[in-house]
């Protein structure tokens, strides 16, 4: 420009890289890979911030006190949620943010001159995580726009559901090939994607597509590796003692702190009132209480009752939340209680942030294996894995939870589903399982679930508006 001003008028961002100059080195590549995991602790990653997946299922009610978030979270409880419902856009946005972060690694890291095996691992981690994020998207919303590069069009139509699954399967297959086993990671790298987690996730993806034949070898492979097992104490399956333990295939590391290093997922569900550990959402339902067989240790490991003394701390609960709610006929419909699985010892809210949410644990693998083997007409083998899970749940008391012996396929199928429910309660599996197994209408119909509508969440209205009609809404929304 004239007067030689162009230098004077060029001011670069301070202490910040621009996207043209990142990632360039192996250190950049590592940081870009780490960033994909960071989205897992984003509060919105957990179904938009609130445990709406469990709240929508028969396992839990909204929780907190009756007023709190009654218009935002409440509608998920009785299927009156709408395309503008709070949380949908947050979940959609953070899943795509995770995908973008994975795409940075998948697109940019291959050209960085660096150690090739490390490079392959980083890309494998990115592929695993991209698959994990798309798996949530496709289950929640159906076919969604596919973004596999860092510079997508502003207007992208929805892809077919099958195309999204193809991408997930491709990514996970590549990840299985390039990722190390969990045991090959140094102790300070535990929590990174590993070969067996990728196999378990791929198996689950197959199962969601009724491809049990392909799932079977993946699951048996994990089991036969002998690298994983069940925690002796069921509490440790989700509790702090079992973090990165033998049962954990993939979990989200978190530090007890509310300043960005923790995970608010647990705070959202933490005990409300006294002690003040959180907001108290995701209240275990009466129906869930009744689902546990007598003597099942998992019941008290799932539900915190008022008056419980845990780690020396007496649970008094919230002054406004009614201790017991009854309907007009006097039947109990809600009991103030909290999710035990996110409990971290402590008295303050910030400590509660330290819960490492388990995304894939070995009990899930065993139950998926049992289900798969039953579908593949191998009920005897299925029973072995199913009973392993039940055995731990009886906690040495041989009087309770007898071994399952039924081999009739449909009967066994239902037994396995019931076992999945109580074993994995309040861990975000139930709703998906009900929809997958086509049990949703039967079980959730009285809560408002309608098949053909609620099998999917609506595409967030804001996204449809922004797309100026390029995105179409799910049927009947």
């Amino acid at each position, binding site marked *: *420009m004239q*007067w030689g*001003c162009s*230098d*004077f*008028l*060029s*001011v*670069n*961002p*301070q*202490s*910040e890289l*621009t*996207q043209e*100059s990142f990632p360039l080195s192996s250190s950049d590549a590592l*940081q870009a890979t*780490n*960033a994909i*995991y*960071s989205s897992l*602790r*984003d509060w919105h990653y957990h179904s938009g911030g609130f445990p709406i997946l469990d709240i929508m299922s028969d396992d839990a009610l909204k929780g907190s006190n009756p*007023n*709190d*978030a*009654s*218009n935002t979270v*409440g509608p998920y409880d009785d299927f009156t949620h*709408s395309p*503008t419902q709070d949380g949908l856009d947050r979940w*959609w946005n*953070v899943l*795509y*943010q995770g995908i*973008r*972060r994975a795409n*940075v690694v998948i697109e940019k890291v291959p050209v960085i001159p660096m150690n090739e095996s490390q490079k392959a691992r980083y890309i494998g981690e990115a592929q695993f995580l991209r698959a994990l994020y798309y798996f949530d998207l496709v289950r929640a919303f159906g076919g969604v*726009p596919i973004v596999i590069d860092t510079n*997508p069009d*502003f*207007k992208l139509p929805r892809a077919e559901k099958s195309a999204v699954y193809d991408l997930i399967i491709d990514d996970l297959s590549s990840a299985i090939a390039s990722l190390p086993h969990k045991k090959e990671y140094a102790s*300070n790298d535990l*929590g990174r994607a590993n070969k067996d987690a990728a196999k378990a996730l791929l198996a689950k993806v197959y199962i969601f597509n009724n491809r049990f034949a392909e799932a079977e070898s993946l699951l048996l492979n994990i089991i036969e590796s002998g690298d994983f097992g069940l925690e002796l104490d069921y509490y440790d399956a989700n509790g702090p003692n079992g973090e990165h333990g033998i049962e954990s295939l993939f979990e*989200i*590391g978190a*530090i007890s*702190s509310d300043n*960005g*290093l923790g995970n608010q997922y647990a705070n959202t569900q933490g005990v409300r009132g*006294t002690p*003040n550990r959180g907001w108290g959402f995701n209240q275990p339902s009466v129906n869930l209480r009744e689902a546990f067989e007598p003597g099942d240790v998992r019941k008290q490991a799932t539900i915190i009752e008022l008056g419980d003394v845990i780690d020396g701390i007496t649970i008094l609960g919230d002054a406004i939340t009614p201790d017991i709610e009854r309907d007009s006929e006097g039947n109990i419909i809600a009991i103030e209680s909290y999710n035990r699985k996110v409990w971290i010892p402590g*008295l303050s809210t910030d400590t509660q942030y330290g819960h*490492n949410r388990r995304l894939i644990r070995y009990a899930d693998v065993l139950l998926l294996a049992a289900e798969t083997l039953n579908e593949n007409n191998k009920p005897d083998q299925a029973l072995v894995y199913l009973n392993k899970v039940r055995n731990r749940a009886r906690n040495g008391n041989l009087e309770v939870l007898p071994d399952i012996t039924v081999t009739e396929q449909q009967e066994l199928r239902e037994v396995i589903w019931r076992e999945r429910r109580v074993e994995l309660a309040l861990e975000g599996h139930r709703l998906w399982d009900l929809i997958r197994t086509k049990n949703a209408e039967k079980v959730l119909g009285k809560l408002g679930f309608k098949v053909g509508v609620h099998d999917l969440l609506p595409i*967030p209205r*804001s996204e449809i*508006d*922004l*797309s*100026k009609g390029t995105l179409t809404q799910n049927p009947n929304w």
Partner: protein
Amino acid sequence: MGIRLILVSFLFAFILVGALKPLSAQQEIRGVVVDETTGEFLPGVNILVDGTIRGTSTNTEGEFVLMTESTDSLLIVSYIGYVTQRIKITDETIYFIQLEQDTGILDELVVIGYGLVRKRDVTGAIGRIGSEDIAKTTSLSADQSLQGKVAGVQITATSGAPGARSAVRIRGVGTFGNSSPIYVVDGVILDDISFLNSSDIASLEVLKDASATAIYGSRGANGVILVQTKKGSSLDDEPRIQVSLESGLQQLEKKIDLLDGREFAIITNEIRSGSYNNVDAVPNTDWQDLIFDIAQIHNHQISFSGGSTNSDYYMSLGYFLNEGIIERSNYERISLKLNNTYRIRQNFKIGNNWTIAPYNQRNAPNVTFQAYRAQPVLEPKYDDGSFGVVYNVGNPLADLAHSNSYNNGVRLVGNVYAELYASQEWFVKTSFGLDASKNKSKNFTPAYTVLNPDGTASQQNNDYSDLYKSEFSSYTWIWENTVNYIKEISDLHTISLLGGITMQQTRSEIIGLVGQNLIRDQKDFWYILPPYVVDEANNINMVNSIYNGVDPNLYYNMISFLGRLVYSYDNTYMTTITLRRDGSSKFAKDNQWGVFPSVAIGWNLDQEDFIQQTELISTLKLRASWGVIGNEKIAYFDRFSRVNSGLQAIFGSPDVSYIASTYGRLGNENLKWESTIQTDVGLEAQFFENRLSAVVDFYERRTEDILVELSTPGHLGNGQGQKIRYNAASVTNKGIEFTLNWSDATNDLGYSINFLGNTIKNKVLAIGGSSGIDSTLIGGGLANGQRVTLSRIGLPIGAYYGYRTDGIFQNENELNSYPHLSQAGVGDLRFVDINNDGVINGHDRSFIGSPIPDFVYGFSVSLDYRGFDLSLSIQGQIGNEIFNGKNVVRPDLYNFEKHVWNRWTGEGTSNSEPRPSFGGYNFLPSDRFIHDGSYLRLRDLIIGYTLPEKILQKINLDLFRVYIKANNFITITKYTGYTPEIGSYDVLSNGIDQGIYPIPRIFSFGVNTSF
């Protein structure tokens, strides 16, 4: 850096110095000035050597003495009411000068951007207040005294907290971003003037239309406020010392009407029966009484001014102390002012203007909102003196007691300049200005726990003590070089040309540190690395973190070229043409430069014969202007796609944090200047020998390519809530502005009445538009994340949206026959099904009110009678709405506003106040929370007495005045909150009452003396 530009500027300065004329031989001349017709000697006549600023004035005998140089050629002899004479300097040493009385009117000079202009040549819309009006308001920042004093200016306090500034809007809200005007203090461009002592200000000129503001190009779109600080005068015969002292008391203007303990217990029992067994036995705590107090305010200064033939000075020291009406909040400022000019050659003047203002501020936590919510049935303290639990809110007294939030810093603003009077026509000026500021803040909260009655810990606690410290520093330098050319050709043509180059650089840096778990709570230990508390297991619970970066709004460079032509023909027809070309580092190369032109014409009708014949009209001017002005107030990095390096991943057993970086949100390389096209037509007139004056303006401002952040599709992966900036909106503001003034004086009585106002019609013309970006702007976030403003085409900026209510469901039948949300029951509000689809949902929320007033007005009277003076200013606005946001957010049980007492209790009992509930359905954002924001406020009332001259002479004083003053004495409004004045810098969150710090009423007493 533009080396070439700097070279050019230096060259410029050299030429300037090189053109200096040497001091030459001096000669003393004497003379006497008389009235041509009467022969009377004229005292106080100004004698100036042409082309210089050297001069003198005649004494009481009409005599003068002056030193002249051999190069001097003309004396300019001027006197109020007389025709200015030009006398040739000859070898004579004694001059007899006769002045002819001027039958025409006076040439008053008006300050405009980069210069002065004869008032009659002004073609722009300019409002002005002088130091006497500024002194009427006791406030931190002098711009607050513009409220109700200049038409078209709206000043709204954002908070009554000590040190808080006001939101200033000139002619409506012109953009979605920063809509504040710029301030030009003695030529230095600034964002605010709260560092200036009001008493150091000579005048504030508000430049409103394009003709006046376009010379500031890209900065002028939201208006320009020119601030002239006081200067010494070489015409003063002796130095002047002025002392003024003012002290006052502040109090809460009114309390919010809330339920008392008994009423609260009754209502709570209705919601949940059995909550209180005996409603007559519950405590009754008035939390508002507990947090508000009477507080002092002081404003004192001393100034010295004077001058001699070759220099003048103004120097002052001011002290301002504002204690808050909430404990632990205050603001204290010392201001030092030094303005000097020196004539070092006969045609060369240098000068400087400096202000140094150190300040201390203490901030209270937002306890007004807590006191509003706290249940009145709870005791503030237990019997043992410890703080009582206040469920869901926290005990405001405990928060106050543990709050230690301080700011302190210093601001230095000033410039040095040189002026060369190269010839009678040419005038060259260069000025180098600086604005440097440094602010340190520290915030310490000790570890504490408020206990429940049973001795367990309540939610109000702080596990570990925390210490936050930050240091902010910024500086701007601005170098302005201008050339003026003024030429009169015959008596008919007057041409004035201005050209200039300016450069500016703004830099800033912030360092923030966090420490935790200090070993002691005392102030002596408020450092980041002191000894820490250790528990029995030798665990140190501490988190230290550091933040370091720049303030993205204060990191840019600019270069500007400017030019102006003012031409007047026969004092009757005028035109002003300005052009400014600005370059900013905030935009990428292709869009870096913006051109901002303006054209204005004026017609002094009073010069025409057909007007001159009427005695009624003394002046009459018609003017019209059009221009384009720019705005670039965005973060310096918005065009860049940046990397987010602030992420962490947690791996390992035990958990360890790993640093992580990845792509942040996308930038927009195509950003360019926002531009405002403003048209103005104005009429100025004076009647009855100038006793009545009137100014009327019609304006339209249309802002295009507004720099606005918009939502983009989620699949881009920018993350929740991340927006991208675009030039993608357009807004208009239209209105009429008027000022009427009547002033007259008899021997004993002088008085003046002023009435002014303006209308504003604000409308969004476009937002977004192209695919993939949003076409609405949602804002006004409440404490629970609900957003209550929606700006879209056809609505005003920051319009409120929510449900419309239509009474209350009186019975089951009614409930069942209307569409309703599932949570609604009998006794609840009935929301209107706006889109008639038979369902109530988010789509039934619609426009429910506007934060922008239709009419803003001011009315003031001042009179003096035999030494007594009285001044009264009323100010207000009509037609805006307030959103009572503090009443909407109710996740838990809080106290209620008194209107709840008139609740629905059965069919027919109420059709406006629903059955009571803790929160929930009836508290969804709806027109129930919209209040009329109109108000009328008796803003200033001052009564003073000045000692008569006779007594003053005896005690050797020039002036002695005492006064009493009341600010914010009475406010008439329907709004139920502390104040109807609820401003926000964020134009999308305007007028939302989130529980603000009240604006106090002030009573003060003061003394002004001068000797």
